[in-house]
């Protein structure tokens, strides 16, 4: 009889375990996203929906590109910003990149005007990974005085590019204003996508960070609607192995089972600090038409302090028509 009881209890607990694992498993789409990103052929678009700038990262056959999508009243235009292909990095200047620089400058200008504390810089946006992420998840419609009036109508009409060999990345004579050291970070996926792409070669990692681990599924209210969500936890450990803080990711899915938002907060000293809120537009392995193509542009050699650079007469490397 005793044995019977034990067996029964075992069977029951096994059933509970199985049941719970079904009820609280990761969304099926999560594994799909993971394999899409891992395959190296993907198109990821993120940023606020609606009019304005969004970011995208596209990769295919070892070529990787990131850029901006500008959605206007009539249609959306893509503006490539950075590209890696065959051991060469490309940087482009066009309306999209200039607009993004303006967004960042306006934000900095505003915080300078309001004399924000040095402490503000980190909580507002997760700047660690990527300069683009700064405004990737949040858009302010408050266009500053300078950006709105003086900045208007000064956008370049055509895309131009500069190219640099990968081996030249540490060249001491590179123009420091070009910030070639940031070029890899600008090809990375947004930091919140670490739940699927932690080991992506371009992904940056912060001190003591560990890979996010799936903890549970649940329901969360977003914009007044009940949504299904997956929760992930990534711990920050010091060099003695003590857990100092937890990064909590909440991946929120819509009714069709597609990911549309990732919230990232930091749990530290009993407080919860918001870190990032990322709107995902699409993660797909079907690349939009011409998304990976080299933009029509004139491409010049990067400024490495040669005599032609000093004369402001850079060498034309190629012209893509």
């Amino acid at each position, binding site marked *: 009889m005793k044995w019977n009881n034990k067996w029964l209890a075992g069977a029951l607990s096994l059933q509970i375990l199985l049941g719970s694992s079904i009820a609280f498993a990761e969304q099926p789409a999560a594994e799909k996203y993971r394999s899409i990103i891992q395959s190296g052929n993907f198109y990821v678009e993120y940023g606020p929906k609606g009019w304005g700038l969004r970011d995208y990262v596209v990769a295919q056959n070892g070529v990787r590109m990131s850029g901006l999508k500008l959605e206007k009243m009539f249609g959306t235009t893509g503006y490539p910003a950075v590209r890696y292909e065959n051991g060469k990095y490309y940087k482009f200047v066009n309306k999209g990149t200039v607009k993004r620089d303006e967004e960042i*400058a306006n934000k900095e200008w505003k915080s300078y005007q309001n004399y924000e504390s040095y402490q*503000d810089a980190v909580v507002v946006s997760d700047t660690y990974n990527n300069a683009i992420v700064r405004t990737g998840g949040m858009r302010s419609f408050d266009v500053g005085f300078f950006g709105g009036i003086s900045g208007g109508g000064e956008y370049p009409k055509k895309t131009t590019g500069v190219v640099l060999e990968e081996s030249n990345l540490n060249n001491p004579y590179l123009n420091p204003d070009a910030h070639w050291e940031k070029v890899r970070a600008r090809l990375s996926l947004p930091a919140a996508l670490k739940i699927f792409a932690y080991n992506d070669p371009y992904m940056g990692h912060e001190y003591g960070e560990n890979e996010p681990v799936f903890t549970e599924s649940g329901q969360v209210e977003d914009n007044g609607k009940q949504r299904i969500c997956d929760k992930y936890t990534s711990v920050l450990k010091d060099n003695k192995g003590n857990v*100092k803080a937890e990064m909590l990711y909440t991946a929120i899915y819509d009714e069709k089972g597609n990911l549309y938002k990732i919230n990232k907060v930091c749990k530290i000293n009993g407080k919860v600090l918001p870190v990032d809120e990322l709107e995902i537009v699409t993660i797909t392995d079907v690349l939009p038409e011409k998304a990976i193509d080299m933009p029509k542009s004139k491409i010049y050699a990067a400024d490495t302090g040669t005599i032609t650079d000093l004369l402001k007469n850079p060498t034309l490397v190629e012209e893509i028509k």
Partner: protein
Amino acid sequence: MMKKILMAGAVSMLLASSSAMAGQLDTYKNMLANKQCTIKYEYIYQDERDKFVTDINRYVMKYTAKSETEEKPNFAGVIVLSGDNSYTERELGPNHYCEIKKDGYVYPFKRFETDKGIKYQGNKEGQHGILAFGAPSDNKVEAHPVNDLRELRYGNEYGGGEIATMLDVIYKDETALRPGKVYWLAASGSLSSGLTYEDYQWAGANGDVDLIRYYFNQGALTKIASVHYVKKSDGSVSGKHYVVNIKEFSSVPDENYLKLPEALKDVTKYDKEGK
């Protein structure tokens, strides 16, 4: 046998003398470890050609006075630590950028000298608004909670930049996740001027070197000088050089600095739990 004893004696004497010389920073180490001190310093930036211009400055510079951002000026500063509360100040021209950290909140404000005396300006938004025709709300401060995540990542960077590094060598905040540079005592001795010194060094993997020298006048820290050499991939070396004069470094925190000036109104919306 005699030789061996002599050798041992010489070695032990050497060790003893070097440790006696090297202990001079310990007083200051304790002050920083206990977080009880008042530091007043003057920062002298030696490399005039090193431009103090960021990307953003460059963009904004079109519209603002260029000279302000052109060169990193010398400045004076104050650091007061009293437990978890602190006060930091940097003087840039007529402006003193101040920050009080108290009971888990940070109060940033600006103090500046005018013809009519000392004035204060808080961080409250809207003060500079171009369309703000009404009375400017200059004298309001809205504190924000201490950014624990930032402190976990980078530690307490009192004074910021070079000052923070120099204090870090005296006492390293081990709680920060950023590993930071590890300096070691490289040399110590006395100078013909009567001052004694301690040299701390750091060496990077690719040939970068930092050296920081602490000068003491009869055991009191009076000056810190540092050089930073970066070795570039083509073998050339570029360097930076800073000097900090220590006007005061005492173990008594000046509590007056930790009070919000009366001219400033605290408009913080605190949590229900209170401060």
